[in-house]
């Protein structure tokens, strides 16, 4: 038996022992586990699952062990993911700390910052928020105006951030703050880690068309942030931010087919319309099939991106490609799901309506798709600047 086969057997046995029944069910937005200082679980199995996986470092399988990770190779991590899928196990932890801050800290953080923050992210002890956009800085992110005045050992931060995901439930926020007011636009920004329990931080929920409030506006009123909380060089936060956004893009693009969809659109159509109904709705059938073709295409593109990463032959533009195609596909999927349901899909709290109302945000967030097109046109194709 090869080492990988032995590892697979070990993983399988451990999961069998440690994956509690409740988490072996298809995921939905409601069942996500976010952790944090005051975590909320809809079932105690979720807590168990997060803690057990966190203790193994398998919430972040490929991070180094000294920072709370599993220290697994890419192949081992793939096996872990396969074995989790095999028993239908959900992700043990959803976290901007894992998806975004972690990779940035691993690349830009000091040893002290890594040791302080990464293990807590891995164990789900701190729930992180992202503080990028501002009311006056959306697509033009580099014009952030939240300012941090140099007060010797700390920055005094004033301003506000918007579209903070679950800002009212988060413990800490990584934020772009203008610390060098006289420097050029892109060179005056620092990447700060701010504790949201500190005096002067407050949030206000934003109600969306879907009826929920997953985002807040987050206000900073004379918040003192120690200088040791700058990630990367002072004034070079834009570099950290770009690095981190490339991770976010890949994640947003790859979410719909790989994680959230328990059934394919084709299966959904059969469940609701039956074979006869599909046969009678020829035009709809054709569009559903085109969606399935594109969904399969996306899955293959994600597979290739993984293979390229492994071969150290990644393209810097894959994130933009996946984000563009993946988010537009997700929108198309929810539109078609609504068409399959017809009037039966109009319940505001219904699954299809909720997915449909939430989908448009994805082509806007993480650098709107128009921004991705700009990136591709200028950097991938080298088209001249307007």
């Amino acid at each position: 038996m090869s080492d990988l086969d032995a590892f697979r057997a070990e993983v399988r046995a451990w999961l069998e022992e440690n994956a509690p029944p409740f988490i072996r069910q298809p995921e939905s937005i409601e069942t996500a586990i976010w952790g944090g200082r005051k975590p909320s679980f809809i079932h105690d199995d979720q807590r168990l699952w997060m803690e057990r996986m966190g203790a193994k470092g398998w919430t972040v399988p490929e991070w180094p062990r000294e920072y709370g990770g599993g220290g697994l190779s890419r192949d081992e991590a793939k096996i872990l993911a396969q074995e989790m899928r095999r028993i239908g196990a959900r992700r043990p932890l959803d976290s901007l700390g894992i998806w975004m801050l972690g990779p940035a800290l691993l690349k830009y953080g000091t040893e002290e910052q890594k040791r302080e923050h990464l293990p807590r992210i891995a164990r789900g002890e701190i729930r992180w928020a992202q503080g990028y956009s501002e009311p006056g800085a959306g697509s033009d992110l580099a014009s952030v105006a939240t300012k941090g005045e140099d007060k010797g050992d700390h920055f005094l931060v004033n301003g506000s951030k918007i579209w903070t995901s679950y800002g009212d439930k988060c413990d800490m926020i990584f934020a772009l703050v203008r610390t060098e007011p006289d420097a050029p636009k892109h060179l005056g920004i620092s990447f700060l880690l701010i504790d949201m329990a500190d005096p002067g931080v407050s949030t206000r929920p934003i109600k969306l068309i879907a009826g929920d409030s997953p985002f807040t506006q987050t206000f900073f009123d004379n918040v003192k942030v120690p200088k040791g909380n700058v990630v990367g060089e002072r004034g070079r936060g834009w570099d950290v931010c770009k690095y981190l956004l490339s991770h976010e893009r890949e994640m947003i693009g790859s979410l719909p087919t790989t994680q959230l969809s328990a059934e394919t659109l084709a299966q959904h159509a059969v469940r609701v319309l039956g074979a006869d109904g599909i046969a009678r709705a020829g035009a709809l059938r054709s569009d559903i099939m085109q969606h399935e073709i594109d969904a399969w295409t996306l899955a293959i593109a994600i597979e290739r991106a993984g293979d390229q990463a492994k071969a150290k032959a990644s393209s810097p533009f894959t994130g933009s490609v996946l984000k563009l195609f993946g988010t537009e596909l997700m929108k198309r999927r929810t539109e078609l799901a609504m068409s399959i349901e017809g009037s039966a899909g109009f319940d505001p709290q219904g699954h299809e309506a909720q997915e449909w109302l939430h989908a448009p945000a994805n082509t806007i967030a993480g650098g709107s798709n128009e921004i991705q097109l700009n990136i591709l046109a200028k950097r991938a194709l080298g088209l001249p600047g307007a």
Partner: protein
Amino acid sequence: MPLVLTEDEQMLVESLRSLLSRSAPVAAFRALRDSGDPKRYSPALWAELAEAGFAAPQVPEAEGGIGMGYAAAGLAAEEMGRVLAATPFLSTALAIELLIAAGDAGQKAALLPGLLDGSRLFALAIEEGGRHDPDTRATRATRDGAGWRIEGTKRFVLDGGVADGLIVATQGEDGPMLLLVDPGAPGVAVTPRASIDSRNAADIAFEGVSVGADAVLGGANGSADDAAAAIARALDVGRVLLAAELLGIAQEAFDRTVAYLKEREQFGVKIGTFQALQHRAARQYVALDLARSVVLKALRALDEGDKARSALASLAKAVTTRTAREAMNEAVQMHGGVGVTDEFDIGLFFKRARVAGETLGDDYFHRERLAKMVWGI
């Protein structure tokens, strides 16, 4: 196999590029077209490709090939697509696939070497109507003494005007039957067809054509089931190779278009500075990048005998046909007026993409085929 090219595959691409840029630039195809040569392909180029092992790199060593796999064949098809090389690459791949899958030892020994070294050219006579429909066979083979008698008409036979041998898909007594037919045999009438892509094609009528028992692919042991399986397999291989060619055609037309956007000036600036064009070009970049993933996946599936290979063949053909069609329309539009002139090469890509898209099924055919696989309806 990962969806990344191996070093060997990258080297293959490089040597193909250097051979093709030397012997088969787009100008060579244009000259061939303008010469009016009825063969509509260059035997010298085909011989050179065969000599270098590129005529059929997928053929295993056990069958006399170089055993580089379908991925290598796909890369060859893509590179030929980039320069619009008019070669019997597809016909040869289809014939080889059918021979290996259904031929008996004697047939393989007699025909494979010539196909591999480029000295023989076989065409597959399968279509009977305009749209791809491999399951309709009005052309019949009935018993005639010890042999068979063929009646019917095959249309749009690729390379049908130059082939020195035909493989005819007929309806036998209990299902499909593949017959080897000499195009010069009594009762065979080959009528060349003009085609928008300036490649060789013909309609072929069979009136009371008599062939011996040894003309049946597989000989005495050839069964309808074997023939059906061989046809299905060959068509899927052909579809993936066409998908690779379409990727090459679309990529080249796109690259030329991006270069044009950086060079052409209007309103005192390069037209590539206009966001209206930048975003459209970026969308083509995305579509091509995705199509590249799908083609490589389908090629690897053929090499690995993946059980999804047939579905992946349809996926690849559907995706590349659609992607190439959109890329071509955008390429012509972004070239403006010169895009619709014969003098500019972009129109040659535009026309070949239409034909390669239809061959062995367009995006509508394959979307339908996938729908039937998924739903059974």
